[in-house]
């Protein structure tokens, strides 16, 4: 089961994982990762913009790829757009499976893709000025793991 959503408002990752786990009572395990706005580098706010015609469709394709590759009971991807402040959750990926390795690997795989080739554009507010964030080479190196 695939549950993929773009969210414009703050969300509660712990509650989302609990709800996801409740939907998959037969799974032997649930792995999850929560990414948050790092409270460092003088970042006052972070803004993610997306493109309606590509971003969610790209997430759905990514989820389908993970579901085809690992024996999962379910996969959850929640991703924020819009303006966030340090400490705010940006992304939640959770996977439910019969055995742990499939869920752990699927979450790692999905995060590496979300960090490198998702259709998202990011800018940070530092000292009152917005700065667009360029792609990091590490993000592309991470993709080569898969």
């Amino acid at each position: 089961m695939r549950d993929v959503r773009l969210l414009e408002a703050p969300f509660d990752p712990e509650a989302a994982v609990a709800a996801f786990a409740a939907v998959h009572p037969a799974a032997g395990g649930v792995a999850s990762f929560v990414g948050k706005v790092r409270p460092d580098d003088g970042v006052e706010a972070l803004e993610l913009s997306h493109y309606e015609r590509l971003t969610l469709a790209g997430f759905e394709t990514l989820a389908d790829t993970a579901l085809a590759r690992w024996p999962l009971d379910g996969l959850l991807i929640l991703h924020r757009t819009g303006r966030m402040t340090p400490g705010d959750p940006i992304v939640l990926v959770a996977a439910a499976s019969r055995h742990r390795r499939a869920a752990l690997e699927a979450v790692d795989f999905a995060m590496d893709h979300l960090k490198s080739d998702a259709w998202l554009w990011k800018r940070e507010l530092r000292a009152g000025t917005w700065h667009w964030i360029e792609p990091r080479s590490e993000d592309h190196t991470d993709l080569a793991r898969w």
Partner: protein
Amino acid sequence: MVAVKLVFLGKLADLAGAPDKDVAGPLDWAGLLAALPGPLGEAARGERVKLAVNGVILAEKTAVAARDGDEIALLPPVSGG
């Protein structure tokens, strides 16, 4: 007005001064560049900027062809989630 809608993503929206712009169609590569003054046109020519027409990424952006009612998105490199 029926037109070709240009959508600017990421820092291209800053260069354009707006998230989108309507341009009379039909539009090919030369027509698109003519509608993108100054640094925006330069950015569009850059090899890291991709084009999508109605949500489909073009393998060769100079082959772009859009009619009134179509949407062309200008996509700079993504920065990741």
